[in-house]
């Protein structure tokens, strides 16, 4: 691999920066069950990082550790060069980590626009009084953030359903709205939990394009979990492979593809 401090240049010539997040010897237990066993890896600025593995490998648990939903039993999470103290998930989100969910977790009772606007909540600072009278900061903020939300909506091509309640949308669009909500937060790291699960080929292609565009346009660092090997290999810059809670491979798609452990554990069984 490449040198640790300075980053590397990808095959298509993109410049990848230093480490934004580093997982150091993470172990996660539920009662007696060990979901993650002593895993370490890093995520670099601007890259697309994938975590793959068969069912029950602990990928989702790992994503939950990154987003702060689970606190690791052992090990440390380093973020932007500092050790992350134990914190609530919302504090992690406010540090710039946004995510989507494997089983869509949109706010079904709200419109698409409102859902995207919830992504902006971490940036809204108006006190309760101005909110009550809809004046001053509250009113200004509403418009400023609306502009950002609308930009994301335009970017993901969902303008036409802006005012539709999300409950009425088809699956593929819901996935896209969820991505919009996460993007609206303008995150440092964007976590995608199986962004293409349950999609048809066309929808998958769309989603791929959006992920690459996001990375390209906004320079957002992306970490994703995905089942679909083909897609992952095309998309990502580096891949972590997990099996039974352990890390069995880490490197560029090509390196991983040729790793014998990975072939045995995952690729061989999967297809």
């Amino acid at each position, binding site marked *: 691999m490449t040198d640790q401090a300075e980053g590397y240049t990808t095959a298509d010539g993109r410049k990848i920066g230093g480490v934004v997040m580093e997982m150091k010897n993470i172990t996660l237990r*539920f*009662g007696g069950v060990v979901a993650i066993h002593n895993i370490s890896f890093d995520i670099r600025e601007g890259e697309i990082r994938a975590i793959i593995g068969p069912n029950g490998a602990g990928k*989702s648990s790992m994503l*939950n550790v990154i987003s702060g*939903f689970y606190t690791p039993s052992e090990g440390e999470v380093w973020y932007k060069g500092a050790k992350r103290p134990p914190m609530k998930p919302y504090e992690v989100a406010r540090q710039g980590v946004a995510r989507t*969910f*494997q*089983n869509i*977790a949109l706010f079904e009772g709200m419109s698409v626009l409102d859902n995207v606007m919830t992504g902006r909540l971490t940036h809204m600072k108006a006190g309760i009084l101005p909110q009550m009278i809809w004046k001053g900061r509250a009113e200004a903020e509403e418009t400023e953030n609306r502009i950002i939300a609308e930009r994301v909506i335009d970017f993901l091509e969902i303008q036409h359903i802006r005012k539709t309640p999300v409950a009425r949308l088809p699956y593929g669009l819901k996935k896209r709205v969820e991505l919009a909500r996460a993007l609206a937060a303008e995150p440092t790291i964007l976590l995608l*939990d199986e962004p293409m699960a349950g999609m048809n080929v066309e929808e998958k292609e769309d989603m791929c394009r959006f992920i690459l565009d996001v990375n390209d346009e906004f320079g957002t660092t992306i970490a994703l979990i995905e089942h679909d090997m083909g897609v992952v290999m095309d998309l990502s810059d580096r891949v972590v492979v997990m099996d039974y809670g352990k890390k069995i491979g880490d490197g560029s798609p090509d390196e991983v593809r040729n790793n014998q452990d990975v072939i045995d554990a995952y690729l061989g069984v999967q297809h």
Partner: protein
Amino acid sequence: MLHDIFIAPFQDMFSAPDFLLQVLWEGLVSGILYALIALGFVLIFRSSRIFNFAQGIMVVFAALTLVGLHAMGVPAWICVLLTLGVMFVLAMAIERVVLRPLVGQPDIILFMATIGITLFLIGFGEIIFGGENKVMITEELGIPTGSWTLEPFGGLLILEQKDVTAVVVAALLVIGLLVFLSRTQMGRAIRALGDDSQAALSVGISLHTIWVLVWFIAGIIALVTGIAWGARAGVSFALEVIAYKALPVLMLGGLESIAGAIIGGLMIGLLEKLFEIYWGQPLMGGNTETWFAFVLALLVLLFRPQGLFGEKIIERV
């Protein structure tokens, strides 16, 4: 002050153990009745995810029907059968008119619907049976009305025979119910529904049949509760309020646990009586039974959100 809270009540208990026994007995009898109502809730919740607020009014309605039929000159035991018939028709009507059109709605909607049923039955019952207090046909049903006076520790312990009967009948009912749930195909279907509705359907019994059945069983429980409680203090719409006591029982025991309902009911019956007699009345002006059970359940849930009998919940995304 500390003495009054931590020492005096226990001194009281030990200085008059016969009285303590009486308190525990009274608590046990109320506890049994709370448990019965809670059981009705649990059965319905397990099979249809409905938090049935109408369980309390069903108790009143069953008891009123029984007494009302008897007032019309029908022999007591025929009344019981006819009342069971009425409860069955009620179960069918509720399934048909209320539940079926509301399938798949959010929990809170179904909960509200049962409040609607409650109001309807209050109005309907009062039009048919009138609002006045009625006497439960205790003797006619062959329930003994005397009392046994025991003298433990040289004191006095009064056991009402109808309370003893209530305890025995309740125990039999619970045993019968458990046998039904574990030994019959229907029963297994109901239990399975609590865990997985697909599994239940695979037994080959339609959901609608199961619902009617479950509401009918809840009706039977209501009738037994109504007879037992009515024998204590007459039958009137004021009975409805005892249904509220089943709610903290559900919090402690869990909405889906049959064992939880029974143990929770007994616990609350005993503890609220002990608290009222030894702490509530001397220190707080009495009447603490209105809230004690709720506050207790709340405190327990604060420290064990899964309830007393639930397993620790692991949240997943």
